């Protein structure tokens, strides 16, 4: 794996030295060669030669569309990882959180067609709700008020709030959902691209506030972030403790979190797929296809768009709360615009509007991203290029929803949408 990555780095860097222009010249050559190759090969490879590839693709698609197969993989994967030492567990767990985020964003972007570039705000709101109410952070503020005595006597001897995850998880989701509605209200009338910029703005504003709300009163602890966040504890079982044992086997903390999030993903996917096939889901699809027509058909587009934000926000907020618990600390830097873009990339890659697509997109893109931290900026470079390539070559994604696929096929044949190609007539 790592030698493959080294080779990729070397390939992108080229043999001409470190000067940016040398690298650029090489990459232009490389891109040109790749383009020529594709042009040459296209349509000339006999179908038999690609048959195994297509078969594999089809097989993968069948497996990935099968929720039981996916679940089985999900259940067994950490055990396999444990056999290899277990260090991959934290990475797989991160990917799981992104699966949650992708399924949530898919409601907004995929189902309803609202391009949200500030989805990270929901994640941040959820994380800060848990972080503030399950850590000593708010101690300094609360002790100056009379509520303090009440709160402290109700919540035990530890300084600050230490509310249980069982309470905070839905609260974090609800807070993020409310935040979604608040963002949604002023943006209801906006067109797609303006909406994208506005949501991006809200995402950044959220982060900047988290970064600066240590003044004049210290709420978020500013750029240093909230520390000493409680791990999730159910009864006497602390998810964060390394002392848990199952018979002779020690249970690493990330294994606990892994299965917790897996459970949450199952629940989320169940709820979201119910939503998709309900009246609400059909109304969302109608809004996506033609908002005016939807309105004329009697759909309350305002409430349904807000509901899309709220539901997307809810799952993002829950993911944020679990993230905070698993990490023990959160800082504004973890809620950069790039998180929104990464999740968007997952949704686009998987196929906008498709739940299995969002799940698989998050797994594939997440794996590419989280298993290659040594690449630093290079992986962002690859993602940028991948996003462009995907939207051009395969806009329907890896696992498109059946409906989207039909729509794309139809637009392909629409002569009013297809320009007459320059050059001599066929």
């Amino acid at each position, binding site marked *: 794996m790592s030698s493959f990555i080294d080779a990729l780095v070397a390939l992108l860097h080229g043999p001409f030295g470190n000067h940016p222009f040398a690298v650029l010249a090489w990459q232009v050559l490389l891109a040109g060669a790749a383009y020529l190759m594709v042009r040459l090969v296209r349509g000339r490879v006999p179908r038999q030669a690609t048959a195994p590839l297509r078969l594999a693709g089809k097989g993968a698609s069948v497996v990935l569309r099968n929720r039981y197969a996916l679940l089985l993989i999900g259940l067994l994967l950490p055990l396999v990882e444990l056999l290899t030492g277990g260090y991959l567990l934290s990475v797989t767990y991160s990917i799981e959180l992104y699966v949650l985020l992708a399924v949530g964003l898919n409601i907004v972007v995929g189902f309803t067609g609202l391009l949200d570039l500030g989805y990270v705000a929901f994640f941040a709101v959820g994380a800060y709700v848990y972080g503030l109410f399950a850590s000593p952070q708010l101690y300094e503020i609360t002790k100056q008020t009379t509520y303090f005595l009440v709160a402290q006597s109700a919540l035990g001897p530890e300084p600050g709030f230490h509310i249980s995850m069982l309470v905070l998880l839905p609260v974090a989701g609800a807070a993020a959902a409310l935040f979604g509605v608040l963002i949604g209200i002023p943006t209801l009338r906006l067109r797609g691209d303006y909406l994208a910029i506005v949501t991006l703005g809200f995402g950044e504003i959220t982060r900047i506030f988290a970064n600066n709300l240590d003044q004049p009163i210290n709420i978020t602890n500013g750029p240093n972030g909230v520390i000493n966040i409680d791990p999730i504890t159910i009864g006497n079982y602390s998810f964060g403790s390394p002392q848990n044992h199952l018979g002779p086997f020690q249970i690493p903390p990330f294994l606990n979190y892994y299965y917790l999030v897996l459970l949450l993903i199952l629940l989320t996917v169940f709820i979201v797929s119910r939503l998709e096939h309900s009246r609400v889901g059909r109304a969302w699809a109608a809004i996506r296809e033609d908002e005016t027509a939807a309105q004329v058909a009697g759909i309350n587009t305002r409430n349904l768009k807000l509901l899309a934000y709220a539901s997307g926000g809810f799952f993002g907020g829950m993911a944020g709360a679990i993230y905070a618990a698993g990490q023990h600390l959160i800082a504004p830097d973890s809620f950069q615009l790039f998180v929104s873009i990464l999740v968007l990339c997952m949704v686009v890659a998987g196929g906008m509007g498709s739940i299995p697509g969002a799940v698989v997109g998050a797994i594939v893109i997440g794996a590419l991203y989280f298993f290659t931290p040594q690449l630093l900026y290079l992986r962002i470079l690859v993602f940028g290029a991948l996003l462009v390539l995907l939207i051009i070559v395969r806009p329907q994604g890896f696992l498109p929803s059946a409906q989207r696929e039909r729509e794309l096929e*139809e*637009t392909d*044949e*629409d*002569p*009013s949408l*297809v*320009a*007459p*190609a*320059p050059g001599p*007539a*066929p």
Partner: protein
Amino acid sequence: MSDSSSDGSAFLEVTGLEVAYGKIVALRGVSLNISRGEIVTLIGANGAGKSTTVRTLAGLMRPLKGRVVFDGKETTGRPAEAIVRRGLCLAPEGRRLFPRMSVHENLLMGAYTRRDRDGVRADMERGFTLFPRLKERSTQLAGTLSGGEQQMLAIARALMSRPRLLMLDEPSLGLAPILVETIFAIIRDINKQGTSILLVEQNARQALQVAHRGYVLETGEIVHTGTGKELLESAEVQKAYLGM
């Protein structure tokens, strides 16, 4: 210059044109031809495919099947911009002026493909003599003109490209009756000065009166053809399109 037309054979020849929007077929094998110097009209009900026909001829849509030959050269599937350069110009339905440009600039846009400044200036003067109202308003923004003025500008603009065949899509749409008369008179004038015309109209009676020949389009197919007079007198056409 090919002289294929001087003997009366087709200046524009369309054979078997098929066009579809997605799965909805709009034209099912339309064939028609226009000789040099003719006014030919294409009439038919709403949705019969009249606009689709001229839009396809102008290069805005691509046919699935069929051939378009203009002045001896095939133009099927060529981009709009190249077709204008050959002298086949469409004044589209709804006028489609550039609302935030002045009348003068709109006319200059009509001459976009031309490099002969003096010729352009002369043609603009000709346009102003044809439509004196436009001269008065030459610095006004096109979007602020009245409907009739806009239609005049649309025709004048199309003429600025010095088309050899001018296609007019519903030039009388939404105009007061008196203006309709004027527009048709102008169409006849333009034709007398040597421009062939393909006129798409819902106003069948008037169109057939100015036209040398006409075609009747019904759900994407040509169902009748003949001289203007013949069609005016045909019982079926009278019943279906002339309200008699």
